């Protein structure tokens, strides 16, 4: 009851609040403009290129106990085809009877063709100082070969439909100490966290802008980060436990977001804060 009264009182001063916010907004405009300049200055010379080059070498080199390269790996368009494949992932793979994103497919090829054990293939999905991730480099290379290609993720197979539907539900799942879901930050237009723009991933435009600019070189970390990393780190900040690399939930969410991005030209590896 008391609370309700306070709420009403709060509304009465709303207009005054808006006026105050406008004064503060003036200073804000210049801050946002300057951040835009900062981002523009970084575009020329993206260290992601270093990962792409390393990834290309890794893709072509014989590897693993069986000493074979990825040239026999089928990313969906036939063995060894790289160009344009990322724009059509995740997708259902009959040989594995599973919907797979790029990272999951790379691990699959490492195990089935190159002879790695599953745990070895899953090792080091995310690099850090002094330990470079082969997966991140491979992803950088493969994704770079879809630059400019229109996103065209299929939703034909029942398992593709299922993954999409599950991803859609997971997106709004609230949990953890802070009650956060993906939608807490990514379901409204024009919002920011600190000075970082938050894409509204529930709209086509928002999903397109966000999904087509991952992977990205993160200047805050000095690393190239993949979409698997993006999801893992969002959940970390949501105060959830740790999302398992290539888990079903990670693929379902990727499917949901990638499919929503259909029609937009893929434009990564990018560079971000």
């Amino acid at each position, binding site marked *: 009851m008391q609370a309700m009264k306070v709420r009403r009182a709060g509304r009465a001063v709303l207009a005054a*609040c808006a006026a105050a916010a406008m004064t503060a907004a003036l200073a804000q405009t210049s801050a946002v403009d300057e951040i835009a300049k900062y981002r523009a200055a970084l575009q020329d010379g993206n260290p992601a290129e270093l990962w792409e080059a390393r990834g290309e070498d890794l893709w072509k080199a014989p590897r693993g106990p069986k000493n074979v390269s990825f040239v026999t790996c089928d990313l969906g368009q036939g063995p060894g085809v790289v160009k344009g494949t990322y724009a059509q992932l995740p997708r259902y793979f009959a040989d594995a009877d599973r919907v797979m994103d790029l990272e999951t497919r790379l691990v699959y090829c490492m195990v089935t063709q190159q002879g790695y054990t599953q745990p070895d293939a899953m090792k080091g999905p995310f690099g850090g100082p002094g330990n470079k991730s082969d997966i991140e480099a491979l992803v950088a290379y493969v994704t770079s070969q879809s630059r400019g290609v229109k996103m065209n993720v299929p939703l034909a197979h029942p398992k593709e439909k299922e993954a999409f539907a599950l991803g859609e539900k*997971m997106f709004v799942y609230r*949990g953890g100490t*802070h009650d956060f879901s993906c939608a807490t930050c990514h379901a409204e237009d024009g919002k*920011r966290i600190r000075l970082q723009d938050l894409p509204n991933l529930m709209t086509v435009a928002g999903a397109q802008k966000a999904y087509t600019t991952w992977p990205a070189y993160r200047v805050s970390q000095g690393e190239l980060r993949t979409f698997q990393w993006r999801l893992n780190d969002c959940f970390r900040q949501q105060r959830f436990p740790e999302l398992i690399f290539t888990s*079903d939930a990670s693929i379902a969410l990727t499917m949901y977001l990638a499919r929503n991005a259909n029609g937009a030209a893929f434009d990564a590896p990018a560079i971000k804060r």
Partner: protein
Amino acid sequence: MRKHFLLWGCAGVIAVAMVGCATAQSDVDVSRQAAAVLKSSFKANGQAGLDRLDQDETQRLCTQYANKALPKDVAEMIEKLNTASIKWPADGKWLGDWKNGERIAQEGRGKQFSDDPKGPVGGNCYACHQLTPQEVSYGTIGPSLYQFAKLRGYTDETRKYAYGKIWNADAYSACSNMPRFGHSQILTEQQIKDLVALLTDPDSPVNK
């Protein structure tokens, strides 16, 4: 003849009901399956155990009604449930130290699996709100709180509202985006008082 007609009519009604049921059922099924797949897709890390995926009543209802209009009765139920959870200060004092409040508002760490469990836990208010005009790096998920008490008055009523809202935002607005800082034991009572001071102390830069 007449009997037949009735029979068919009934069957029709039942069929429609079943179709309706089937869609509703499948939506619930997908939600259930999504929750189950989520739970098998995470591993405990540091202070973040798998129990963090278990939803309380508020989280469950807010997930269920995400993307839909929240029915009035459900909203009222959630607000009532959460209002009851607010622990008002035993000493009746609202104001802590606004300078500490500013530090808590800036601090983004706490409760993440990557955080030291003994390390600082903040409110990270600037992630979503504008507060002091000096900090240009603020988010806009929540409303601007600049001049919070200057506009509302430096009254007990304003302070009680700020305290209660920080303790449990869902008591005021069901399925709020704002964490329930007191209820979920993210911040201590003293930290919340420090934040109330940041918002409602006349000396706080928020009110300049």
